């Protein structure tokens, strides 16, 4: 079916700003692929370049075995769901879904039939005669999806597919979206700034910053082995603790306290190196008694997360955050020891911010 390959893709705006700056990525057939990054990182520009809504300045884009770099959007075999869904307000649901077929000069009868079939598949039966304004947000999204898949595209592009839904509905739609993608087996690229969404939905994630790819990998890879401090800080529902430190005597000095070297960094860094020590709040433990390799700190703030709490502890100027079970909740002002898991900790080069191990 359709593999998407970009080769040194560049999108330069008038004035020299590069929205996408030399992206090389191959998206496998049938893959659910996420473009993740903060606003302005170029993820939407890359998606729109694949769609053909932005002209490509340099590089090449292949969909399937065709070079589509200079093709019109309509000739690329891609469908896209926009962030605002872009349902035509003057057409009812059935006409909206059937619109791509109308352009392809399919007759009125078959058009209606396809619209009904696709609509039923997305539980839109009974809503076919309504106008978009008479639908809920979730229903509008399903109509937009139905319109996108009505023509059996080779590639489905989704621009922030869940951002316009209420928090509760978002979870539901997330599962629904994943099921639909599995069912259709269509190569799907979606853009999001929500790392949780990317982790939950995608087979692979591309993390972007300033128009460049930072890391491409499975959700597990980008979560546990971020290639640099940017990815480390961006992925995770609570940001990773990143502390400027120094190595000494085969250990890392985190705010003065000696902490064992992360497992992956053993033998890859000498003494006296300037490093950034990273540990996810979920992987830190709390001890009320002194422990070897623990970091003594004082609890300053406690935030309730439901079944767990987010504890902020200070050691001098250094703040460490850890997620603890609700049963182990300390009180503000308590002193104790933050205990890292060497297997889960990471070390980054302080200068290049790249992962050491």
């Amino acid at each position, binding site marked *: 079916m359709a593999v998407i390959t970009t080769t040194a893709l560049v999108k330069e705006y008038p004035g020299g700003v590069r929205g996408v700056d030399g992206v090389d990525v191959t998206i496998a057939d049938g893959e659910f692929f996420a473009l993740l990054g903060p606003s302005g990182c170029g993820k939407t520009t890359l998606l729109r370049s694949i769609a053909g809504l932005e002209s490509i300045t340099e590089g090449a884009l292949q969909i399937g075995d065709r070079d589509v770099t200079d093709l019109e959007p309509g000739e690329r075999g891609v469908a896209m769901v926009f962030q*605002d869904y872009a349902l035509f307000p*003057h057409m009812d649901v059935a006409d909206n879904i059937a*619109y791509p077929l109308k352009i392809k000069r399919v007759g009125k009868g078959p058009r209606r039939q396809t619209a009904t079939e696709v609509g039923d598949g997305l539980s839109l039966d009974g809503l076919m005669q309504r106008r978009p304004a008479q639908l809920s947000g979730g229903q509008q999204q399903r109509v937009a999806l139905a319109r996108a898949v009505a023509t059996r595209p080779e590639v489905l592009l989704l621009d922030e597919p869940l951002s316009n839904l209420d928090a509760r509905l978002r979870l539901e739609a997330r599962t629904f979206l994943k099921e639909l993608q599995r069912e259709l087996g269509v190569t799907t690229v979606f853009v999001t700034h929500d790392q949780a969404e990317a982790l939950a939905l995608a087979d692979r994630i591309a993390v972007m910053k300033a128009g460049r790819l930072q890391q491409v990998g499975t959700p597990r890879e980008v979560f546990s082995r971020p290639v640099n401090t940017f990815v480390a800080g961006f992925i995770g529902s609570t940001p990773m603790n990143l502390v400027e430190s120094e190595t000494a005597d085969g250990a890392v000095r985190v705010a003065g306290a000696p902490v064992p070297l992360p497992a992956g960094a053993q033998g890859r860094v000498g003494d006296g190196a300037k490093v950034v020590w990273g540990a996810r709040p979920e992987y830190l433990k709390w001890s009320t008694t002194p422990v070897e390799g623990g970091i003594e700190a004082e609890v300053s703030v406690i935030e309730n997360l439901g079944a767990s709490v987010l504890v902020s502890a200070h050691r001098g100027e250094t703040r460490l955050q850890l997620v603890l079970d609700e049963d182990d909740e300390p009180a503000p002002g308590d002193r104790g020891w933050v205990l890292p898991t060497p297997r889960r900790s990471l070390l980054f080069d302080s200068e290049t911010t790249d992962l050491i191990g």
Partner: protein
Amino acid sequence: MTGEPLLPQAADAPGPRTAAPPPSLGRRMVRHYLSRVLFVVAMGLVLAFFALPMLWLVTAPFDADPSLTVGWPDWTLANFARIAENRYALGSLRNSLVLGLGTMALVLTLGSLAAYALSRVRIPGRDGLLYALLLLSSIVTGTAAMVPTFQLITQIGLINTQIGVILVLAGGVLPTVIFILKDFMDSIPKSYEESARLYGASPLQILTHVVVPTARPGLAFVAVWTVVQVWGNFLVPFLLLRTPESQPAAVLMYTFYTEGGQPDLRLLSAFSLVFSVPVIAMYFLVNRRYGFRFHGGIKS
């Protein structure tokens, strides 16, 4: 008024401020009511000033002997029969219709195409161009350009034709129309068109399937506004149409005199009413069908 000072004494009055008592409650009430009455009377005069011509327009046509004053009519429908008796009256209404609808069609077609392009394509100096056009447009159909317009239309052989009038009138209203429609199209999200584009729609298909239907309230407004402009325009058709057969109603009215050289009020009043009805009817019809909505910056 008594002339007694109502304000507290000026600064030169010595002693505490209590020296000047506030106006009594009764006097304040009187002042309040007096100002209300004066206000209502003034408003009434303004209202009468504007309402009298309207009243004349709806009563005079039904009066057996209309004058220039408003009065209870001596009911009759005979005045309307005079319209039919006039050789040019009905034809002039048809001419007005041709001019109005012709200009509207031309303006809507060209205006929406131009506005769409101006709204979607980045052109350096676009806003300046639009403002310049808007300013110049008042000259095209204005008094200042009477002579050159007449010469131009004569030279290209369109004198005494409806086409010539339509072209000049369309030229006059187009800048304003483009200005309004561009603003309207700016407010239509681009994702509608991009969506259609992704499905392979051509620019013309995008325009007819997506842009025109979503811009319909704006187009309806512009259509009505154009017809109203043309319907009431006197100068351009007066200059360019030289025979009574081709003149529109607004110009023909100018010739309604009796043999004695007096304005033929019986014909004039009835014709005026017939003349104004289509515009009002069109307003209600279009409003009902398409609705004049403003797509402002306020989320509805």
